[in-house]
């Protein structure tokens, strides 16, 4: 298993380098101009100077290699220095990946945005899974019952209703009509005592609800299908013939087998959590990663978009690896040698 993991990790290096190059290529080919959002009164020659100062006059491959150097060498060094409080390899001159628009290091921007995204999107993922698994189990066990039909209906709603609709709908109901929750997520809120904690929970409920509906819809379907596959297996009959209680048969024998494919699906969904929820974050004004990406795209901020997209790619590659490893751990029949 360790061997396999190391092999996979080594193989992911060229894969990721290739991905980073493709992302750079696509961004470079896209007709976008970082000075496009500047006031029209700025004369063209000044715009040209701004572009030159951003390094846009250099050829594509030079800019790509520069980004590689900044991202793969300078940024890790910077993290190291910040962590240890040292200054290695003349840190004053070190160039970091810097946003065109804000002129601040992209990694710092991401670090700033990460907590909101993790709180809201991550929490919604956890909540969604926690709701989905019992729903899937019961739906499968009581197939075609009223509960199952209701579960199917809710999943259908979760799959088909887009968050820009459900988000606005819950704002209308819970903020405008009932006045229970704030419609805007306040990032400046610091949780220091019980009151602020309650505020934080209140402002999280609606975005989490909207996002969890989608997760629940997906995972509960997977769970139900997987349970149904296993419920008719011979080993379930054996377990019953041993005189085991129905709860043991279901929650030990069937569930363990059914979770194997579902866990891999869940692991593959984790990168999406870090990617943020672009639309839902917009609706609730959560200034998370998703929103950062949108701003970057709109402003033609190539280093920001390049770095963010590349981080997503890293997450996806690693989530795949983790899913495969988990599969091997959960299913004793799978051996990677």
């Amino acid at each position, binding site marked *: 298993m360790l061997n396999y993991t190391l092999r996979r990790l080594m193989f992911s290096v060229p894969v990721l380098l290739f991905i980073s190059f493709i992302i750079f290529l696509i961004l470079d080919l896209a007709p976008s101009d970082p000075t496009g959002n500047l006031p029209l009164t700025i004369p063209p020659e000044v715009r040209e100077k701004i572009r030159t100062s951003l390094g846009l006059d250099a050829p594509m491959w030079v800019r790509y290699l520069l980004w590689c150097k900044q991202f793969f060498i300078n940024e890790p060094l910077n993290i190291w220095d910040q962590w240890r409080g040292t200054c290695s390899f003349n840190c004053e001159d070190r160039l970091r990946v810097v946003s065109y628009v804000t002129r601040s290091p992209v990694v710092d921007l991401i670090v700033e945005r990460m907590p909101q995204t993790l709180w809201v999107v991550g929490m919604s993922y956890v909540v969604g899974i926690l709701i989905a698994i019992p729903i899937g189990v019961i739906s499968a066990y009581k197939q075609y019952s009223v509960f199952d039909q209701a579960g199917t209906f809710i999943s259908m709603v979760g799959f088909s209703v887009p968050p820009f609709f459900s988000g606005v709908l819950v704002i209308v109901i819970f903020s405008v009509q009932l006045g229970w929750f704030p419609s805007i997520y306040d990032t400046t809120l610091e949780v220091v005592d019980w009151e602020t904690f309650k505020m934080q929970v209140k402002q999280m409920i609606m975005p989490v609800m909207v996002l969890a509906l989608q997760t629940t819809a997906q995972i509960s379907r997977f769970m139900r299908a997987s349970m149904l596959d296993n419920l008719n297996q011979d*080993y379930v*009959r*054996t*377990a019953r*013939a041993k*005189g*085991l209680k129905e709860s043991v048969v279901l929650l030990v024998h069937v569930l363990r087998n059914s979770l194997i494919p579902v866990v891999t699906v869940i692991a593959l969904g984790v990168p999406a959590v870090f990617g943020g929820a672009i639309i839902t974050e917009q609706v609730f004004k959560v200034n998370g990663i998703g929103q950062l990406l949108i701003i970057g795209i709109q402003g033609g901020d190539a280093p920001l978009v390049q770095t963010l997209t590349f981080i997503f790619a890293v997450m996806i590659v690693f989530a795949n690896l983790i899913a495969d490893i988990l599969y091997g751990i959960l299913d004793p029949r799978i051996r990677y040698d």
Partner: protein
Amino acid sequence: MPDGASKVLDVQNLNTIFQTRSGEIHAVNNVSFDLEEGELLGVVGESGSGKSVTMMSLIRLLPSPPAEIRAGKVMFDGLDLLKIDDDKLRDIRGARIGFIFQDPMTSLNPVFTVGFQLREPLMRHMGLNKKQANKRAAELLEMVGIPAASARLKDYPHQFSGGMRQRVMIAIALACDPEVLIADEPTTALDVTIQAQILELIKELRQKLGMAIIWITHDLGVIAGIADRVMVMYGGQVVEEAPVRELFKNPQHPYTKALLKTVPHVRGERAERLEVIEGQPPILGGAPTACPFRERCPVAIDICARENPALHVTGPRHAAACHLVAPAREEAHV
């Protein structure tokens, strides 16, 4: 077996149906039989004759829906297994009535160790703790002839061969010293040499432990070698019942006769074609109103299409359900 031995299992008028989209399937029709202490009852019949469904109905192992036990009585130690509540039934399943299934490849849970699966009934029924259960599990594995038993408890089912897995299944079924062992085609999925080994094992364990066994198979050769008494099923009914020698020597029902003819002879003429029973087994659409075998029966008469024959005693402990062996038909059909 000595006559007059007490019955451990007494099944009366068992009826099981399956609800399907195209209507009810009457899989078991008025099946009655009993099992004496220490006896080995062979149940034969072709696929779809209701052998397995009958035995699964006994301890309510069929998924419901679609299966439904319409009527009948299954007396076991003074209890009607069809009436008692689920908790009581679960105390009997796996403890006093053991089950072995056909396919050892799929009958064990792939993600749990063999030790875990063996410990389960021991801890559930005998109240052993994990350590005691482990010890007993190792003894059981040894008893069914698995070498290096205590080391193999940590192995997963896929690390065992088919024959070894069936041995594990037998160990699980016998874990709590059951009075009755129901073996549902335990050798069908195994190759012939392994089949012989499993048969020998069962014979040996029977001598040692003295449980009564119901052995479901469609292999008459196996029956001849192991059974005390045989029950032949067709179309969800018992068509003939007799001690094993009597059945092979003196079959009464046309189906049994035909079945015995289909067995290929090792020493017979090579040129001879294999005997077959023409036609298909019946589709058990409604409650039977005629003999289920009449369409394939070489000696069918008019009445076979009008009336379903009841079991008629033709000799000592020998009964057959055929109009030809009961010409008088004084007893009304149930």
